[in-house]
């Protein structure tokens, strides 16, 4: 019992953020409360992309958090990213998912798989927020079963020609750079390759915009790829490695959505707390229903527990240790919690919950159990790990 942090207790586990991360958290919260929260309801009612706020977020460096320092990033890592995303999403999940996709899907992949030339070409635009990134994997016939994709990439000598629409593309109508997964061969897995496609490439078009339950300030669109001819050097990684590249985003993406869900859950918790504090008896003593107080207590406990679960996975990932099942645990539990918390907020706030921020949380929360690997996919990942398949 010799290793101690403070000289008194024989332990190593610590659950405190460093002063630096605590300050970063406060900065993110301040930005979220100042630049996102006041406008989030209007953005969502008008289905308006928060362009200015994203630009301001870029100025604060929030769009470069997963980018290596040598390409203009801050490389703060996964834990910092989780902390940031919880704060942004507590105020505006539409802005939150935009930033999460940009960082954890687009910039991460470019950092991990891009050539030097590709990094030099695209990172300046990405870290400044001049271009936002989008991730084009899903198609009408391939959701959870991503390997069923059919979008074709044809080798035409000096160019690749991509053909076939992509569906459910977050930020699709606002992005400058698309990571596109397309089929270069018949093999279900090894026949998939990844490409960098620019918004202005001829043949790239914005198709149908989804009309959604929530997250309406984050455009989800179809990306039309009609014989899009791109230079050979737009291939990301090697031919046939697309599925591996897609898998490489899983952990980061899941931690991002886990943190988004935590932000939503916390916002719902805070709505309930603030509402219950207004309920006092004739003598000014707290007078909330037990049922509502118990619900609040249960939520408070689970928010803490699942935040720890999320941060643990982030710390493992920051340490380059395997964290697949642990990231799935975080995604699974946080997304369910966000929905439970939002539903509870609507119930407890009553009629004012039907017309105020609670109902927006309920609508926004619902997607967290679906995207970045639906709930049952997370369970599958965890069960495989536990069973040692």
């Amino acid at each position, binding site marked *: 019992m010799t290793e101690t942090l403070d000289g008194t207790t024989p332990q190593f586990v610590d659950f405190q953020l460093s002063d630096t991360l605590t300050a970063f958290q406060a900065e993110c919260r301040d930005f979220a409360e100042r630049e996102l929260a006041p406008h989030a309801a209007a953005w969502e*009612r008008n289905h308006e992309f928060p362009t200015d706020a994203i630009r301001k977020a870029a100025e604060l460096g929030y769009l470069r958090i997963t980018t290596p320092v040598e390409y203009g990033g801050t490389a703060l890592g996964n834990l910092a990213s989780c902390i940031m995303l919880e704060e942004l999403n507590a105020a505006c999940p539409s802005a939150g998912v935009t930033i999460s996709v940009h960082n954890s899907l687009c910039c991460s992949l470019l950092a991990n798989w891009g050539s030097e030339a590709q990094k030099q070409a695209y990172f300046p635009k990405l870290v400044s927020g001049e271009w936002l990134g989008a991730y084009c994997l*899903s198609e009408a*016939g391939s*959701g*959870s*079963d991503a390997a*069923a994709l059919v979008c074709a990439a044809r080798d035409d000598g000096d160019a690749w020609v991509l053909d076939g629409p992509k*569906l*459910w593309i977050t930020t699709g109508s606002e992005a400058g750079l698309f990571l596109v997964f397309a089929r270069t061969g018949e093999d279900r897995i090894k026949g998939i390759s990844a490409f960098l496609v620019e918004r202005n490439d001829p043949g790239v078009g914005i198709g149908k915009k*989804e*009309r*959604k*339950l*929530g997250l309406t300030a984050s455009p989800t669109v179809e990306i039309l790829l009609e014989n899009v001819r791109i230079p050979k050097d737009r291939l990301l990684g090697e031919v046939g490695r697309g599925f591996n590249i897609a898998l490489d985003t899983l952990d980061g993406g899941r931690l991002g959505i886990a943190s988004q869900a935590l932000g939503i859950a916390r916002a719902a918790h805070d709505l309930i707390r603030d509402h219950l504090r207004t309920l006092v008896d004739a003598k000014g003593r707290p007078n909330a*229903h037990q*049922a*509502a107080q118990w619900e609040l207590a249960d939520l408070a406990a689970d928010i803490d527990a699942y935040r720890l679960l999320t941060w643990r996975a982030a710390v493992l990932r920051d340490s380059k240790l395997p964290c697949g099942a642990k990231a799935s645990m975080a995604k699974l539990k946080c997304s369910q919690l966000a*929905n439970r918390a939002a*539903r509870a907020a*609507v*119930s*407890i706030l*009553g*009629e*004012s*919950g*039907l*017309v105020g921020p609670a*109902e927006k949380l*309920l*609508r926004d929360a*619902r*997607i967290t*159990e*679906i*995207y970045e690997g*639906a*709930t*049952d996919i997370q*369970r599958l990942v965890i069960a495989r790990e536990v069973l040692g398949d």
Partner: protein
Amino acid sequence: MHNLTLSDELSMIQDTVRKLVQDVVDPAALEHDEHRQFVRPAFEALAETGLFGAAIAEEDGGAGLGLLSLVVACEELGRACGSTGRLFATQAGTAARALAGLADAADVMEAVLMGETIVGFVGLEHGVAAVLDGAAASVDGTARFVTGAGEAGLLLVAAATADGPVLCAVDPSACAIEGHAHGLGYRAAAPAQVVFAHAAGRVLASGADAEAAIARAGIATDIGAAALAAGSAFASVELGRRHTAERIAFGKPLAKQQAVGHKLVEGLRRAEAARQLAYQAARVADAGGDAAGLAAMARLTAVDAAVHAADESIQVHGGFGYTVEYHVERHYRDAKTLEVLDGGACAVRDVLAARLGALA
């Protein structure tokens, strides 16, 4: 299978509503909801069928088919369009049952049963108060999320007075009514906030008559809500079943995944439980028994079932479920909204808890 419990008359009502749903409600449900347009065509079509009086005794101008008819009709409407269903349940259930037998309300009853006017009902849970002067009332208070109020020609208001509750008719033009432009559910049912500021009302019942009328309204409200929600739950399950039977993933229909099947089964089980409770509550009420407890239990069961079934149906739809075209997100919003209305589920549980000894 539940046709076993339906008489010929009730089967006819079911057929009538099904046809009306197919012709009028279904084709417009998505669009009306998305654009928050009032479902006037559906309301008018329902008025034409005469169904607003189905649950009302013949001596009160109705068809005398009891609350069972309300359950049958609401279940069908609940499957298709919560907004239409809620308006129907308020008109044919809550309002008509409140007015039944009130000597001074025959003209109001006629307008309600004929569908000449759309009724908004303000229950005691809104805390509206009245001061009486003979048959005239001065009404004060604010009621939020009153469905139909944005288009109503008549507000029926249960208001508190120093001598207990009364039931009043208030002209909407005497109130400040503001539609909820951004509410969660029932977007096509013109939900609105109603502010009464010394609003002139006409007393339809007071004393024991008012208490009985409000109690009748409450039971009809709960049974109607239960049937609407049960219908919604069945619809969510059926939408999920159809989608997953067709959607192929990992080489086979999604429906073949045990986890998918079990989600739908759980939805179905809860929906069926809710339906049976709603029927039983209606049977007991129609036989003159005290159905308040059963109606409350039916409502709780059904609303939970509807929220759960819609939630799981969204889940088995994957990303599609998050979009409006697949209908389940609408069921989710409407079901959750229904949970909050009429006092909310917590209050229902409080009432049941106080009566536990008589129910167990």
